[in-house]
């Protein structure tokens, strides 16, 4: 059984369908009842289920509540589309050795064109290799070889078998499958079912001329597929879309960085041109210098934000190399980028306080270089009454969400037509007066009060400071659904000129912050 002899114009596709890939990649063993869920039609719905969950009757498309009604302790994991796509891509990488013409078939399959792989062996051998490889990778799969990927995938998915479909026999393999295996609008499928046509084979038996006009264009395409006339995509050899590496050998060694900067500048311009061509931007670049004695010297540069602006990159390089001592004459210069990401093409929002002054980005980039990204943060305010929860730290430069995000979303809907809103004005839109220096956690403090329970003196650093002026009380309470609190705050101007923020809760006083003098 040597398999078919390939001709010049012949295509053969191998599809590996891993039915449990989506949950395997999340680490759910098959015996655990677990489902992958995503929001669809106003409810969290099952996207995939472990075999154990499927045994309890849980099926894709079912709501989580319905699944839990069948199996109360079923675990639900929220689908992370990006991570899943990345993992499928990684899985695809692993099969590159089978064929360079390979692609992911989201969400749980990989396809390879195998007719043009020199020395790949027979289709049977190839199928077996892929089956074993998939199993080794922890994703048992059904492998089908056919003339077109759609047929192969459908047979793998619906018949759950390993199979080689001989050339020109795809339609025979598809014939027993249900109509649901074909991509077709529900309306067309219902119509076909009313006509008694329940399998792909029955559908294929309809004359093409009879299908055209009676059904939607999508059903006409599905009919072509049912007859083994699926589109056969051209899978190009895999091109890695990794970091860019640009090198310039120097005709003569250069010992001064000032002189070297012209070469570096030219490389940066090349780099940005290529980034533009790839619609990408970078946040990090590494400058490598090969010295005449064979040693290397490298300098890593953070760019603050995604960019492909040659001037900005060059400015960063100049700043970073201002005090650089070259280890010797340089014979070659290399620029290496990090994994470039797609350039979103957004115009800088001049109203954005973080962007209105470029120097902020510049300073932050320097700080990031010096301290690392984990140490440079900015505060984002949150419309919340609990003072210590009314902001959160975000990595510096994280863009402010425009219209998505829970808090923003809430405000959008809150400002939607609301009779009360017109009444009360927009109290929540006016930021309350809060001290710029907040103590976290607040410090327990001794406070003297008068008969009206108002603070008259506070005990700080071992001595009593009298309260010269006070503002309050301000009562803040809430969050009864999670961590209830109820506090009475005072702003107190102390005799030493400082102004502090105090509160009383459960009979105890706490110091919560300071204003600048």
């Amino acid at each position, binding site marked *: 059984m040597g398999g078919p002899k390939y001709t010049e114009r012949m295509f053969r596709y191998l599809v590996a369908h891993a039915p449990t890939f989506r949950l395997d990649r999340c680490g759910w063993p098959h015996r655990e009842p677990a489902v992958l869920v995503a929001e669809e039609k106003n409810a969290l719905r099952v996207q995939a289920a472990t075999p154990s969950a499927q045994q309890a009757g849980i099926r894709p498309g079912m709501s989580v509540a319905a699944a*839990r009604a069948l199996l109360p302790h079923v675990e639900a994991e929220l689908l992370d589309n990006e991570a899943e796509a990345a993992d499928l891509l990684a899985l695809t990488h692993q099969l590159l050795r089978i064929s360079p013409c390979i692609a992911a078939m989201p969400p749980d399959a990989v396809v390879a064109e195998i007719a043009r792989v020199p020395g790949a062996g027979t289709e049977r051998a190839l199928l077996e290799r892929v089956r074993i490889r998939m199993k080794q990778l922890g994703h048992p799969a059904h492998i089908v070889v056919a003339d077109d990927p759609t047929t192969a995938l459908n047979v793998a998915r619906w018949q759950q078998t390993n199979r080689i479909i001989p050339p020109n026999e795809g339609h025979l393999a598809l014939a027993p499958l249900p109509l649901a295996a074909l991509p077709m609008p529900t309306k067309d499928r219902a119509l076909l079912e009313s006509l008694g046509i329940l399998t792909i084979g029955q559908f294929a038996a309809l004359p093409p001329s009879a299908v055209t006009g009676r059904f939607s264009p999508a059903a006409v395409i599905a009919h072509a597929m049912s007859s083994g006339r699926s589109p056969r995509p051209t899978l190009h050899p895999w091109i890695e879309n990794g970091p860019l590496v640009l090198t310039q050998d120097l005709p003569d060694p250069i010992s001064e960085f000032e002189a070297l900067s012209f070469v570096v500048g030219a490389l940066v311009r090349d780099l940005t041109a290529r980034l533009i061509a790839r619609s990408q931007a970078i946040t990090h670049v590494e400058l490598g210098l090969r010295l005449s004695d064979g040693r290397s010297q490298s300098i890593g540069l953070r760019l603050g934000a995604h960019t492909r602006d040659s001037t900005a990159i060059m400015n960063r390089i100049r700043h970073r190399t201002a005090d650089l001592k070259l280890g010797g004459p340089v014979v070659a210069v290399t620029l290496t980028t990090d994994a470039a990401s797609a350039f979103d093409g957004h115009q800088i929002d001049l109203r954005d306080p973080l962007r209105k002054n470029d120097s902020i980005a510049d300073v932050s980039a320097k700080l990031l270089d010096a301290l690392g990204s984990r140490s440079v943060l900015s505060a984002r305010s949150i419309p919340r009454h609990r003072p210590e929860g009314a902001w959160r730290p975000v990595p510096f430069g994280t863009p402010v969400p425009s219209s998505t995000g829970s808090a923003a979303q*809430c405000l959008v809907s809150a400002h939607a037509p609301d009779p009360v809103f017109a009444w009360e004005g927009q109290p929540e839109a006016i930021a309350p007066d809060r001290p710029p220096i907040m103590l976290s956690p607040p410090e327990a403090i001794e406070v003297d009060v008068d008969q009206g329970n108002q603070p008259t003196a506070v005990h700080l650093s071992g001595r009593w400071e009298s309260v010269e002026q006070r503002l309050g009380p301000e009562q803040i309470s809430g969050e009864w659904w999670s961590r209830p609190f109820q506090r009475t705050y005072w702003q107190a101007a102390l005799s030493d000129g400082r102004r502090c923020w105090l509160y009383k809760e459960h009979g105890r006083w706490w110091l919560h912050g300071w204003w600048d003098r």
Partner: protein
Amino acid sequence: MVASRVVGPVNEPIELVCRTAFSFGEGASTPEEIVERAAELGFSAVGITDRDGVYGLPRAHRAALACGIRVLPGALLTIAGGPGVALLAQDAGGWSNLTRLLTDARKDTPKGWGQLPLQQLLDRSRGLEAILLGHWTPESTQAMRECFGESLSLALTRRLDSHDVKHWDRMAVLSAATQVPLVATSDAIMHSSSRKPLHDVLTCIRRKCTVDNAGSALAANAMRCLRSPSAMKRMFASAPSALERTHEIAHRCTFSLDDLRYLYPREIVPEGWTPIRWLRHETAIGLEWRYPEGTPAKVTSQVEHELRLIEKLNFSAYFLTVYDAVRFARDRNILCQGRGSAANSAVCFALGITAVDPAHSSLLFERFISEERGEPPDIDVDFEHERREEVLQYVYKRYGRHRAAMVNEVISYRRRSALRDAGKALGLDPDQIDRLAKGVQWFDRNAINEAKLTEAGLNPRDPRVQQTVTMAEALKGMPRHVGIHSGGFTVSDGPLIDLCPIEPASMKGRTVIQWDKDDIDTVGFVKVDLLSLGMLTAIRKGFDMVKEHTGQCLSLASIPADDPGVYDMLCRADTMGVFQIESRAQMSMLPRMQPRCFYDLVIQVSIVRPGPIQGGMVHPYLRRRRGEEPIEYAHPSLEPILKRTLGVPIFQEQVMAMASAVGGFSPGEADALRRAMGAWRKRGTLGPLAEKLMAGMRANGISDAYAQQIRDQIRGFGEYGFPESHAASFARLVYVSAWLKHHYPAAFCAALLNSQPMGFYSPRSLLDDARRHDVDVRPIDIQKSHWDNTLEPTGQRSWAIRLGFRQIKGLPKQAGLRIQTEREAHGTFQSIASLQCRADINRSALATLARADALQSLAANRRHALWAVQGLYDLPLFRGLQRTDDAHLPESTEIDEMREDYRSFGLSLAHNPVGMVRETLTQKGFISAAEVHAVPGGRTVKVAGMVAHRQRPGTAKGVVFMTLEDETGLLNVVIKPHTFERQRKTIVQHNLLEITARVQRDGQSVSLLASRFSPLKAPKPEKLTSRDFR
């Protein structure tokens, strides 16, 4: 009782601005809670100022009367493009201005909103006290000052939040600049700070967010609650004049809802006539019409007696109003029937308001209109449900929109809606909330337990789930929104708009007042109920069919009385489709009751109700009726009251009369008892009235056990009780519908189908019942069917039902009517293409017809018909052209046919899912519904069928009743609570069931006591639904 107009000592502040739960989604306390708390805190008066409405004022007024404090009526008005103003009525003129302003504010705004241009407010400032809230500009404030003068104030609030200091500074500056004085207020939205969580939840519901992401949209603290006068003094210590101002304002506002002067319209009487003379005149004409052979002496004297009482109580205009609406309906051939306390009078019979002939009944007028009670009579008129709107629009036109309006209905949170909204606010998954709400809607009247939560996919130990349940309980009973009363109309002599704001209802063409039916009682408005009843539509359509096919003209009054055949049918409980007595409970009662006369029907419709059931009156009545126990009276004075019901109290009026006769109640107290019955459900107690009743009965030598029974019965009436007057009117419709079913079963069934949705049974059950009565049911046919179901003669006096296009799901009515019209005009259709062209029907509608097998005369079978339809060109230019290519389509099986039938019209004439597996069932020892009737009681049987209904009535102590249907008939299945709880999932989730059960017999009544359920393995139709009830 009129409340005192004194507002307490000058140095005691008064809370002038309070929002109740009728500021929807905002106020977290009911008007009663606000008023009761205000009284408790020592306020002598409290201002009720809901946002853009006065919905809660009558309730606050009632509470205030009980607490002995004053309510200052007012409202908060939203100014277009700006902040708001609290308006309090100083006098009747001010109130009139306020109601007109609110009417204008609601006129062109979306439902739930109000908004008014400032200029309109300035034009109607007289008699109003204005308190400015929110951010007013100096210019607008000045403009207000020029109009309101001394009656304008600036609200000074103290919320102890981060804006307080700025607010005080701003108000001080504005006051100084405009010379408008400040007035202190808490601007309360809850009666106690403990309501803060509920207020947060309401805020989230209103703003469509969750507590987690609401952030600062929630109030920063719980300070916006009612605070005591002493607390107010402390908080506004630095602004004593603002506190004094509260007293000044309250002193000026002397208006009370007691001051409203409502007058009934007078112009329904022709020039030169007084209402009573005109009523006498019309009654006399009516008697000639009713009794062409001459009015019986008994009726003449009864009419005279009633007219004298009507004149004495000045109710003639009211009777004439109802008569006017009924006459309009009669002129347009709209069937109607009156019911209610005065409807079964001889006068109403003469005027055509009711069809209950006083010559054939002995209902006492005094029982329905009480001179001592002195309250307006109650006449509800039911009209055909499909044509009631015509009558409503007539009333609007007759009196004008400024004098006539429908009555509002406050929709309060129930468990299901409370769970949904609280769940959303607390961020539960919408699907889980949906399942939980649906799960508890029907079966779970008690607290939600862990099992129910687990079943809904929720973790019962999750604090968030527990909070949802707690908040849902807190929400329950709070007003959610206002709707429109089912038929309550109020009309007035002068402009109604001066008495209460009128607003457009959601339903086009209707306007409503802001008060509901209880509220208008408080303010003395008179209401006429113009209701809709599906059975009247069915009866009229039945009459029309009988006339078309036999020439016999029938009317509610002309149906021959006391037909023994009809009563025989009722005794057999053969009542599917018959008005009021078609339910499982009624059907099980009929063989035991054995009704033989009209009054038996009056009792029949009343006895299967929570009142008599909870009072334990059903079995004593049946035993006495069968002569198994002597007819005795607990006290001699009860004999005249209870004689007609064999010594057992069954009607609401009897309980009231008993309270007077042996409970020592005055007529006023008996009336209070009647009201308390209605409020039982809300309050859960009859209060001192119950104790007084028990003591009175004890003093009259009535045993404690009997007195206890009466008390339980009153509680039952609170759930749902039937006055005799209603029962008598309904009994008439029971008899008429039963008569139609007995004599014209085909017409009766077709009429019911043509009046859907209505009644207890699905079209599938109704048609199966008709076929069991030897009525041939013919399929929908493009060449013969009409839009409606019609009759086709099959013999001298027998007819078959031809199913109409209306039975096909998804077929547009216009398409069905066009087919009918075209066929009647130009004859039958020769091909599907000619049908498309002649009737101008698109391919989608034709496919619907093909799937329903309505094109059988034009194609070999429904699949070929559908194939042919799909081959038509749909573009107008190519209409009638058809693709001729053929295809080999698989032959359909019986199961395919049955499934297509159910998909198309929810039933199958040719195939019954249970019948299809009968052979297998028989082999496994299952018997049919028809066979069960021959099985002796006590024996265990196995049956299978489709679930027609599930029901868990409140009076059944957790027992679930199920109606099971197979190809031979219906079965009543009784499920004990423990059986139900054990097998809940199977019972609730499957509509095709196998049941093991024990046969129970009580006379001719047969039921099954179920012990085991399992899903029936039979071909399941795609859409097989049951009708489930509480």
